[in-house]
């Protein structure tokens, strides 16, 4: 069986690049290669991951400088041609700065850096990033960010709702989307959104940090598994990934 080729962009200050490569390459047994941000071409890849971290020190604004790294021209071209792009945390911020996703990630309403497990509910499982999930599934995945407070103009948010572009929402363990389950003040508890074309996903939680069974949390595998299924077919599923935990 073929393998999905993941390309993980490395900016100066990225710190989840190797985790993403480890999960895609070692845990999920696909091809995974790091791509330095000064490269002008992504090369032969199926999926691009913009990883978490603090690209260029998050100077000016999160993602504002990374967005002009040389590789980003090819990332934008790749995305506009329908290529799959996954932005995790800082990667999500880069995608909004690059205009590949709408809105912006503001400072957490608490002004605190939040580093803990949260629950997110799958709002839309008709995407290549969530195809292995059921709608309403609750995934327990960690967040680690200071600027994760999703904001967009009211009409933009409405468009996200109308087009079913909200993929993940912060929720309680039971799956209730409530204020108390919102860690950072995000509009409508938004934890992850997809572009209109359905090939660019950004999310604040870190699926790559909850994918290796050694860490006891494996819900993050759902996202990697979804991508793999979308490229290779459902038969590529090695085992049921969403174990009944509750």
């Amino acid at each position, binding site marked *: 069986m073929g393998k999905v080729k993941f390309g993980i962009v490395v900016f100066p200050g990225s710190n989840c690049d190797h985790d993403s490569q480890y999960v895609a390459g070692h845990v999920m047994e696909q091809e995974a290669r790091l791509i330095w941000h000064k490269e002008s071409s992504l090369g032969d890849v199926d999926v691009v991951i913009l990883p978490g971290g603090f690209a260029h020190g998050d100077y*000016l*604004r999160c993602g*504002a400088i990374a967005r*002009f790294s040389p590789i980003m021209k090819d990332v934008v071209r790749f995305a506009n041609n329908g290529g799959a792009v996954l932005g995790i945390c800082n990667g999500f911020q880069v995608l*909004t*700065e690059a205009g590949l996703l709408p*809105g*912006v990630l*503001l*400072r957490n*309403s*608490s*002004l605190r850096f939040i580093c803990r497990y949260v629950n997110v509910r799958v709002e839309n499982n008709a995407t290549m990033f969530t195809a292995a999930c059921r709608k309403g599934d609750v995934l327990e995945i960690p967040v680690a960010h200071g600027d994760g407070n999703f*904001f*967009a*103009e009211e009409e933009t948010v409405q468009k996200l709702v109308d087009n079913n572009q909200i993929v993940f929402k912060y929720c309680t363990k039971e799956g209730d989307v409530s204020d108390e389950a919102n860690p950072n003040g995000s509009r409508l508890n938004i934890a992850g959104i997809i572009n209109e074309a359905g090939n660019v996903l950004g999310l604040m939680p870190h699926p790559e940090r909850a994918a290796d069974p050694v860490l006891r949390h494996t819900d993050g595998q759902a996202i990697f598994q979804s991508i793999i299924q979308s490229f290779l077919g459902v038969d590529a599923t090695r085992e049921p990934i969403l174990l009944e935990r509750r």
Partner: protein
Amino acid sequence: MYRAKITVTLRKSILDPQGKAVEQSIHSLGYGTVENVRIGKFIELTVDTKSREEAERLTNDVCRKLLANPVMEDFSFVVEEED
């Protein structure tokens, strides 16, 4: 040569929790009449252009493309002649 002095602020419609925290701190100092604290950025840069108009246009471009994100920020600037 012109020196541009740029101010970037969060748009009025956006809650500024940092400003709020500082405001509370000012209040606890006893300055109860201080309100609406907003925190922004100040950026200075030199542009080597012949005319002031050109310097303003260039500064405006840089602000629009990089220094401010229009989704959440407004910017303003003044351009001064420099030796």
